[in-house]
């Protein structure tokens, strides 16, 4: 006996549209089972996890704080994925963006003024781009596998940041804690509505990025090029599009957005550099990109959902006393369900005997 996937000739359009919601439903169900096994009342646990964070203004702000980097990164990743470039290293591009952007407030704290912040943001973008250019150039010139090279560069970036904040960039007034100096007021990304909560302009950047990228992908020649190269590289070459050019462009877009997310997070949410500045946004954004169907507008919704899984994890830790690793479990289940739903919409499972024997049986 053999289990195989058979392509459906006509995948259902309805289920295609419903797929993300189905995946969420499956995730919630599996989550309930998981809580039951942990000995918690499933309905209370799910409430604490998914609903409670949405009932208070301050935690809605927290939701946006968490969603901003996820959305920014995922939009860049979707551009890469659409063009068949598998950039898995957004986490590293995020970190390098944060480091580049922090050069000014950390190394030149006396340098003040209204232009500090724009320079920091641009530096952040530049940092992410530079870091993404490495796997891109390696792929374009030497045909290296971008999945491996971009992923490994994440660890390099993490260790580099760790070394920086323990060594040269350690806060001179920081009692030897592994942290950079606190950003001065001009270097802090302001809150959108400072009276009610912490949500900073990073979320605004995310929304702008989503709209702009949606337009580029669906309405411009560049977006056309990216989609052609992803679906049919040979036709792309015939059209006169350059493979290397597309690799580089898409990686730079992804790196730039990840870098912007990185500096926004450090300057808007944290206020200094620390050894760890991301709870894995760069990886979670991969889930966001797929849950959002690689569509920038879908990604905004997906980013909010995944942000909720982080918040719920924290909330569940407090109110239920479960480990906040539950958030990771949830994200894993969600990615799994998304991929499973998509696969089952395009393929059906068939349990086959020996086909050759079957063939002779007639």
């Amino acid at each position, binding site marked *: 006996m*053999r289990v195989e996937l*058979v392509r459906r*000739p*006509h995948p259902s359009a309805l289920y295609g549209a419903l797929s993300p919601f189905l995946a969420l439903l499956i995730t919630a169900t599996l989550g309930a089972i998981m809580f039951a096994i942990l000995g918690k009342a499933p309905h209370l646990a799910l409430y604490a996890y998914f609903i409670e964070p949405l009932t208070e203004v301050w935690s809605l702000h927290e939701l946006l704080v968490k969603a901003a980097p996820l959305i920014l990164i995922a939009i860049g990743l979707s551009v890469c994925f659409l063009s068949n470039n598998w950039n898995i290293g957004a986490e590293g591009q995020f970190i390098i963006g944060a480091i580049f952007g922090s050069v000014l407030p950390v190394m030149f704290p006396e340098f003040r003024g209204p232009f500090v912040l724009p320079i920091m943001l641009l530096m952040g973008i530049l940092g992410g781009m530079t870091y993404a250019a490495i796997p891109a150039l390696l792929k374009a010139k030497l045909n290296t596998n971008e999945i491996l090279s971009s992923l490994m560069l994440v660890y390099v970036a993490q260790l580099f940041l760790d070394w920086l904040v323990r060594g040269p960039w350690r806060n001179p007034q920081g009692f030897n804690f592994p942290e950079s100096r606190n950003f001065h007021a001009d270097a802090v990304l302001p809150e959108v509505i400072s009276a009610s909560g912490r949500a900073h302009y990073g979320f605004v950047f995310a929304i702008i990025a989503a709209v702009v990228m949606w337009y580029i992908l669906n*309405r*411009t*020649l*560049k977006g*056309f090029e990216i*989609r*052609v190269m992803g*679906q*049919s590289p*040979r*036709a792309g*070459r*015939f*059209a*006169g599009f*350059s493979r290397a050019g597309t690799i580089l462009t898409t990686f730079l877009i992804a790196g730039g957005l990840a870098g912007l997310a990185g500096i926004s997070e450090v300057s808007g949410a944290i206020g200094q550099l620390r050894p760890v500045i991301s709870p894995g946004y760069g990886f979670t954004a991969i889930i966001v990109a797929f849950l959002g169907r690689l569509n920038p507008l879908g990604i905004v919704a997906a980013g909010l959902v995944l942000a909720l899984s982080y918040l719920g994890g924290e909330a569940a830790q407090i109110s239920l006393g479960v480990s906040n690793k539950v958030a990771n479990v949830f994200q894993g289940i969600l990615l799994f369900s998304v991929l499973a739903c998509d696969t089952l919409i395009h393929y059906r499972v*068939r349990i*086959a005997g*020996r*086909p*050759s024997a*079957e*063939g002779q*049986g*007639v």
Partner: protein
Amino acid sequence: MSDTDEPPTLQNTLLKVEGITKTFGTLKANDRVDFDIVPGEIHALLGENGAGKSTLVKMLFGSLQPDSGTIKWRGQPVTISDPMDARALGIGMVFQHFSLFESLSAAENIALSLGGEVSLSRTAAEAKRVSDEYGLPIHPDRLVGELSVGERQRIEIVRCLLQQPELIILDEPTSVLTPQEAEKLFATLEKVRREGKSILYISHRLEEVQRLCDRATVLRLGRVVAHCDPRAETAKSLAAMMVGEDIHDVDRRKAVPKEPAKQQPVLVIDDLSQPPTGPFAVALRNVALEVFPGEVVGIAGIAGNGQSEFFEAVSGERLQDRPERIRIRGKNAGHDGPSGRRRLGAAFSPEERLGHGAVPGFSLSENLLLSRHATDGKTYVGALGTIKSRALTSALERIVQALDVRKSEADPLASSLSGGNLQKLILGREFDRAPALLIANQPTWGVDAGAAAHIRQEVIDLARAGSGVLVISQDLDELLEMADRIAVMSDGRLSETIPTETVTREALGLMMGGAGNGEASAKNSPMLPEGTI
């Protein structure tokens, strides 16, 4: 199975189709189609592009589901929900568009469809045996991506035969083959028929249908318009049944340029040599050619002798070592990509429609942009790189009108067009530009007789209006009909051109075997499709 209880007539029919209907949107691709196949017959399915032939056979093979109607196999109603069901029944199919994985070897492709129970080496040996037995030379170890269409098709046929089907469906098997290759295929098919198996045969070449087929079913606009004995008909009467009217002959008025030497050539290829792109690709050797305005130059040759490599070199998908190797309207273009060459006035129509000339999952208007964004940038692309979709749809409308492209909705996906209609669109996209130079590889592959005549006429008219045209084709008749001069490509070399008036089929046939250029042929078998040894 209780076959023995069935009345003899039913037992005799292998496959019976009753009232099959299939609708795409508002288009009835098949409308109450009836026909049957008996064991040991070759049954032809005829009809113009978009008549619904591929749709019908896809339902027999389980890759599409009928909306209504029944399929009976040996008298029993059956539901064929996917190709595996079809194979289990004993139905094999060779698709119009190939379904092989390019990055796998021939043997691996075959093993995949056998279900993985058989070892690769045994599959290769089996495939070799079948290929010898039926006279279908294949190389099991070669990557499919490196092979010519002719050989890819042989792989598909061998793969199909390996499963010992009772009914083999062939969707336009000869449209990519040279006459010699087709001849071999016919021998194979007749052998298969002698073994008592049946064949359902789709082709636009009526002569071969008359030679080969015992019965024919003719479709027009999705309906059966006739069941007939093709041998009792003439090619003309068959064509008239398909189209509902007579087909015009191509009018090849005399070439305009009296003294081409005085004119500037639109295309100069100067001693072009290049190493092979892959282990099984063909090297180009000292290819030289000039194309003048007002003329059609034909390149004949057996597939796999460097035509695809030549096309990619001329189109700029592969660049040359020196810019002056290729000159378009007097400008060095050897270092320009396809866009640069298009801007110089060239237009290209590649051999493979899906995945090379068009992106299957994109709409037709988007596919229009594929080859037009560089030259008609102002028309179709606005400020900030915005695509002007309205301009695209109106251009699409124009092209569809000009070449009579049949489709099911206003702007469908390229993959939903019938093979011939997509071909018309890809060529129409270039005609619409009135290019100074058109280079077309297999321009009428899979196009029905009426549309093929139309396309050839368009090509000739384009040339007579002052453009230069280079046509690469395996179809000698087509070249003799269109071209003013013909050269032969063999083993990556191109012969001198010969004026069509003085050329004979025999001479061309000899040159195709590699005896051109006054060189003795090193090959003992001129039929061998690959030029690399």
